[in-house]
């Protein structure tokens, strides 16, 4: 932010809130002022003057401190609803002489925060804000709020650093059991040359190719040979499995229904993750969208993205198409 912004009385993103200490200070100043005026006692005037001087000094220095702070938040690659999300915040103090003391970093609208005890002048400090999204979905990236109270804590002065873009929060992971799949099992072999899937026996070792799962990296050989070596696993017949999520409910506006639907989605997401981690090919059907069965982390993300964004809707469920392969259907009991 260029220097003229520091001269503005209010600059973008600035917020001010009095603390309890401010109200007590106001009472103190009122009483001392009244006593001084009533008695003409110069010692009380001195006390009043120094109190007000401290108030002004605290305001000026905290304003200076806040005006020279810049902050940036780094989000993790995956954010899960209900799980602790660790966000790294980096705060830079551009003041040439004044350290920033007791800087609080929060995420707007989210719980949690962290205190950076001291940021020396012209230096930066990092901290981790552990927060939690209560619900899945697509959110505008929360702004980072930096608060300063020092030196005397009369006001909470905050500066808001907004971030562009959205943040996708995956459904909550729960302890879900693998369902009983119904339908005729359908198998498949390796999908395309060069793609190996986890789960089979190790057949050979070869050099890493783009697209390989990093979990198949053979670290010992890699260290020995000085290049990335992966394990190619034996093909095996894999079954195509579908998880079918029925989004139709009787009353989608009912909060209880929405909560139950979210729980259902969490279960589906957890099952999908578990199956894919076990090496199964899993597809997802959320009417009318169909994600064909596949493997791998990218496929899992695709499924999770769909589940993160699905919303309940009013209606009656129907079988969307003839599923080839085993499937397990998840629906709320009230839908009809």
């Amino acid at each position, binding site marked *: 932010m260029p*220097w003229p912004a520091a001269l503005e009385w209010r600059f973008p993103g600035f917020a001010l809130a009095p603390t309890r200490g401010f109200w*007590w200070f106001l009472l*103190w100043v009122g009483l*001392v002022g009244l*006593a*001084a*005026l*009533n*008695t*003409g*006692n*110069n*010692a*009380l*005037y*001195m*006390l*009043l*003057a*120094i*109190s007000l*001087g*401290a108030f*002004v*000094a605290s305001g*000026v*220095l905290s304003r200076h401190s806040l005006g020279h702070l*810049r902050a940036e938040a*780094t989000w*993790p690659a995956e954010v899960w609803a209900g799980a602790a999300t*660790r966000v*790294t915040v980096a705060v*830079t103090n551009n003041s040439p*002489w004044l*350290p920033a*003391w*007791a800087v609080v970093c929060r995420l707007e609208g989210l719980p*949690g925060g*962290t*205190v*950076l*005890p*001291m940021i020396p002048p*012209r*230096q*930066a400090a*990092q901290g*981790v804000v*552990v927060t939690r999204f209560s619900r899945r979905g697509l959110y505008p990236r929360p702004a980072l709020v930096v608060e300063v109270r*020092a*030196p*005397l804590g009369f006001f909470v002065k905050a500066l808001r650093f907004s971030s562009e873009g959205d943040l996708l929060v995956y459904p909550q992971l729960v302890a879900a059991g693998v369902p009983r799949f119904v339908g005729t099992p359908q198998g498949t072999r390796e999908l395309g040359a060069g793609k190996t899937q986890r789960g089979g026996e190790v057949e050979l070792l070869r050099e*890493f190719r*783009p697209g*390989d799962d*990093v979990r198949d*990296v053979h670290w010992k050989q890699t*260290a020995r040979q000085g*290049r*990335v070596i992966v394990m190619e696993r034996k093909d095996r017949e894999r079954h195509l499995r579908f998880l079918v999520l029925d989004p139709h409910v009787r009353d989608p506006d009912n909060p209880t229904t929405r909560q139950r639907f979210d729980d259902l989605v969490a279960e589906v997401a957890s099952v999908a993750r578990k199956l894919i981690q076990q090496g199964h090919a899993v597809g997802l059907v959320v009417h009318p969208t169909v994600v064909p069965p596949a493997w791998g982390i990218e496929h899992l993300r695709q499924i999770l993205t769909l589940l993160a964004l699905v919303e309940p809707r009013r209606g009656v469920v129907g079988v969307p198409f003839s599923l080839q392969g085993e499937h397990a259907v998840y629906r709320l009991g009230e839908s009809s």
Partner: protein
Amino acid sequence: MSTSLLWQRWLALAALAVTLPLGFSGAVNWLFLLPLAGVGLALLFSRTVYPPLPAWVENLLAPLILLAALAAGGLRFGILRPVANLLVLLTAVRLWGGAPRPRRYTVLALLAVLNAAGVASSTHPALVLYLVVGLAALTFATAQLLPLELGQRLGGAAPRGQPPWRLWLATTALALAVGAPLFVLFPRLRSPFAAAGMGARPISGFREAVSLHQLGEIKTSRRPMLRVRFPDQAEVNPQWLRFVGATLSHYRAGRWLEGRRQVQRGDLPILRGDQVGVRAEFSLEQTSDRLFLPPGARRLVPPEVEVWLDGAEAVRIPRGLVPPIAYQVVFDPSGVYTRPPGDEDLAVPISRPALERLAQRVTEGHQGAWAKAKALETYLQANYRYSTRTLAPLRADPVEWFLWTSREGHCEFFASAMVLLLRAQGIPARLQTGFAGGQDLGNGEFLLRDANAHAWVLAFVNNRWHIFDPTPPEGQPAAELGRSAWDWRAIWARLGEIWDRWIITFSLADQLDVLLAVWAKVRRHWLWIAVAGLVALAGVAVAVLSRRWRPRPQARLTLSPLGRSLWQLARLAGWEEGALHHATPTKVLETLLLRLERSRATCQWLFLVHQQVTYGLVQPPGARQLRRALREVRGELVAYRRQGSTPPPGEG
């Protein structure tokens, strides 16, 4: 150290600090301050956080505290003293176990009230040091406790450490810089609802009506009261430093007072007196309802207000005049001018036989009124002790109590006793109160303070009035004469005088004088001030603009070793330092992968590890493994650079 322990120690330190002004100013008896100081010391050096006292213990202490306040005099000496005593003891009780959250705010409030009371009672220059150190300590404490409280509230680790010295030093300095002009500019308007005296003031100073029962323990006040200058005299006789406020003849039940039955207005004789004598210029530094004149005052040039004489032969002026109040007097140094003696000057309303016996015994062998008076004066000086702590019981007459029981007291007791003893011998006598002694300021000028208030005796001997002072020498206000200008005591006294003049007694008139003087200077030198202002403004503009144009060094980010290595890889790939500060790891990785073929996986692995380590998910891999991976990626990037040109990251 836990947050609670830190709170406990800071509260203890605050309590100890609060005892200083309260004790030294005399606002609270030292005995009452001992519990507070004791609790403060115990908590300050303790390593454990004490819980509050059980409720039944506090309930038990409550009546004891009340009894202590009553034993100290109760309401006998006014309401403020017992209230202050009660507050001090209450604070001592609440301070114990005052660290926990809801209780600490009560303790803070009590300490704040006591601090204000102590400051209000102080007139010593050390008050400035006390306030400055107090402010610095408050800033330090707040800066230390704030992050701990925030850390607890946010649920994370409570950050600890010493606040940066620049922060609390800057706060203190800025507070003083702002507070000083505020002190000058605050309007010195006495409220029409100014609290009247709520009981006798237990500090030294002139009182119109002398009430021996209510004096109690007197604390010396350094408040300046009167300035006297003898402009025509090369040397000043210390005997001249005695100025009358009231002449009292009637004594009843421990009180000396005069009624207003003899008010004389209009053309007072003293306004037309001859001008033969010593000339003195007076300046009253406090609001007053009377002028203080030498006993031998012949002519008075009063201030430009109505003056009149009251029953105590005091020259009265209207109350509410804004000090300093200036007037001039010409006086006869050897004379005492007062009305002739009357029956009231021989009245002995108490224990006449006992007084007669005592006076007879003392004056036995002395012939003549003068010798008898001197004998009585000497007897009282030699056989009675001067003390400012006198608690005359209500049931007894204070003069009798002084003469036969306590045998100690201050000047009013001595003077009252001598007056009554003289009257018992048939010698007309009166009590005079006013000021005596004073601090030599040089150039024939003297400063008298509240502590210079005094009482002495007028005895009608050999057909004229004479002054006698039966107070022992240690109780008589001294005249400090002839100090060298470079004597360190004189320097300190001079500083004290400046403090008293421009801080303690800074009044509305002084304010106006200061503002008018500043305005006059501005008007006289407006051109130079304008030029200086423009130069200063230009200097500030140049400094600010040069800072803007100068490339600002980038703030140093704290990076892990792996982070630094990846930073270097990014620079190798063509990233600018400034752009890197705003780039995300994902973005950097994308651009690196465009330049890599063989070591793409390695590069991905490096960034994945960095991400995991940053979030604390894994331990960093071995240094050897990292070095090998970095070498591989770095080698390919260098080879890529040598080959050809692609747009730097972020462009195209």
